[in-house]
């Protein structure tokens, strides 16, 4: 069941100028309700454009964007309402912080929606809770926060709209492994508890493999592949042939297969490859691999 759908959407930058550039070319894709969909593709594949089409920051040159089956540009004057329903967290969102306190900043979007003071406060608390910002931080200036906290405050600023769809463009860019885990793990928890549909853009295939349910791969202005994480990354070879990245561990698995090690199953996470390798070894050497058993982590 899809919640957001693009039908034959094209978008061109600088139309009619010498710098004209096609960003998306008759793209049709639908995003399933209540799951995390990862959007992958290299720079210039049209990801960032697509993301801005989803909440009406950009208007398609042709084709339609459907939210719950309704064209979001049906009433152009009410595009603001669409932006509340499709929350967009842009790249390096911490630069959007401006208000005097974290609380006021997270409350910016709900205030713009015209909600009552109580309702705004309730949503601020809820959103701060989702991203793990403690009560004691809410009355500080957003500029006094650490880098990772700023990022989380900015994301909370969008969650506070209680959007039906939350779109995030590289939410973990520039963070260290722990910071990435905090943000992406938190996002997954948020998705599972709130049921919100999440669309995630990332360059890190390792993160995509770990945190997403479905994957949409763009390549040169078109959709190249879509499906569950299992389906998409089982085509690791095709993906890497068109120059798309795959999880590093999937590369290891591909190389091992080339060396004649018969691996099968989930070959895009460390645990998955470990299990597959162990199984292959057991099958080859009879009932026991060199280890007694193990496999407690997977």
């Amino acid at each position, binding site marked *: 069941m899809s919640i957001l759908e693009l039908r034959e959407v094209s978008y061109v930058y600088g139309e009619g100028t010498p710098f004209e550039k096609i960003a998306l070319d008759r793209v049709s894709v639908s995003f399933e309700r209540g799951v995390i969909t990862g959007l992958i593709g*290299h*720079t210039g594949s049209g990801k960032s454009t697509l993301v801005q089409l989803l909440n009406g920051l950009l208007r398609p040159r042709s084709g339609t964007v459907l939210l719950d089956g309704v064209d979001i540009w049906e009433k152009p004057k009410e595009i603001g309402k669409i932006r509340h329903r499709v929350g967009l967290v842009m790249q390096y969102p911490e630069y959007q912080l401006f208000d005097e306190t974290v609380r006021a900043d997270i409350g910016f979007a709900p205030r713009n929606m015209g909600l009552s003071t109580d309702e705004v406060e309730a949503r601020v608390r809820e959103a701060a809770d989702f991203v793990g910002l403690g009560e004691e931080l809410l009355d500080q200036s957003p500029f*006094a926060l*650490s*880098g*990772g906290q700023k990022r989380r405050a900015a994301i909370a600023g969008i969650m506070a709209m209680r959007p039906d769809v939350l779109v995030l463009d590289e939410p973990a*860019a*520039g*963070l*260290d*492994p*722990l*910071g990435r885990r905090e943000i992406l793990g938190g996002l997954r928890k948020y998705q599972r508890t709130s049921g919100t549909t999440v669309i995630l853009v990332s*360059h890190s295939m*390792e993160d995509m493999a770990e945190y997403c349910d479905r994957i949409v791969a763009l390549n040169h202005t078109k959709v190249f592949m879509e499906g569950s994480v299992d389906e998409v990354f089982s085509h690791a070879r095709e993906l890497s042939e068109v120059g798309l*990245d795959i*999880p*590093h*561990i999937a*590369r*290891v698995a591909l*190389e*091992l297969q080339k*060396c*004649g*090690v018969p691996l099968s199953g989930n070959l895009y996470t*460390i*645990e998955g*490859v*470990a299990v597959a*390798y*162990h199984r*292959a*070894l057991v099958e*080859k*050497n009879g009932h026991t*691999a*060199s*280890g*007694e*058993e*193990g*496999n*407690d*982590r997977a």
Partner: protein
Amino acid sequence: MENIIETENITFSYSEERGKQNPALDGVSVSVREGEYVAILGHNGSGKSTLAKLLNMILVPDSGVIRIGSDEITSPNFSEDDMFRVRRNVGMVFQNPDNQLVATVVEEDVAFGPENLGIPREEIRQRVDAALEAVGMTEYAKHAPHRLSGGQKQRIAIAGIMAMMPRCVIFDEATAMLDPAGRRGILAIMDSLNHEHSITVLNITHHMDEAARADRVIVINDGVVYMQGTPAEVFARVDELHAVGLEAPQDTELIELLRRMGLPLPAGCVGFNACVDALARLYEGGAR
């Protein structure tokens, strides 16, 4: 080989830090030999960037001694002229590609350093051309920087440092804001700086796969040296890395996981080929 960088027990704290005096660096002693390729690993806020700024005299340590080559830069009678000599020898590439380019034309920007050093014009020309060549940006010499991609801007920044002919280049999270293609390009340049131009490379990063390319890894945590050694030595200690919010590269993590599952794989497998080899060999029965 002689040490190009040496720190002895340096401490540093940002004075305006709220409330408690939490030192960013608390007694750090490291040394880097001339021609070495060293990665400094640590999570955000571990103090690794502070260390870089101290080496380049952007910050001054509260205590301790820093030696760059034969200069003791922490000595009280170290003059401004000496400082600029140190900076010429130790170049620095920063995180944000936008915020380190000065001029509106690529080649003018690359020339900025040599111009400041008062190098004669003909020589600047040669150095600019050579530097652009080294980073593969010759065809962009006349372009405007703001039209380039992040990775390309970062290459220009490196060319700008190379044109000063430094002995050592410090990369301060220089790949953090780049896409994978841009990052790969910069890493290839780091390798070639070290291997082909014999420049000492210090890469400050939180990307484990970047650290795996270095000769030696120094892990900084909470302002102290937490671990150091070859990538193989450091990454074999996966648990200790996890304890400070870091991890090993995926291939090494796989080997370590399988080792914990009891398979007889060698410890400290680092690098794609080494890991694949080890796994393939075990499968083919080399181990049985």
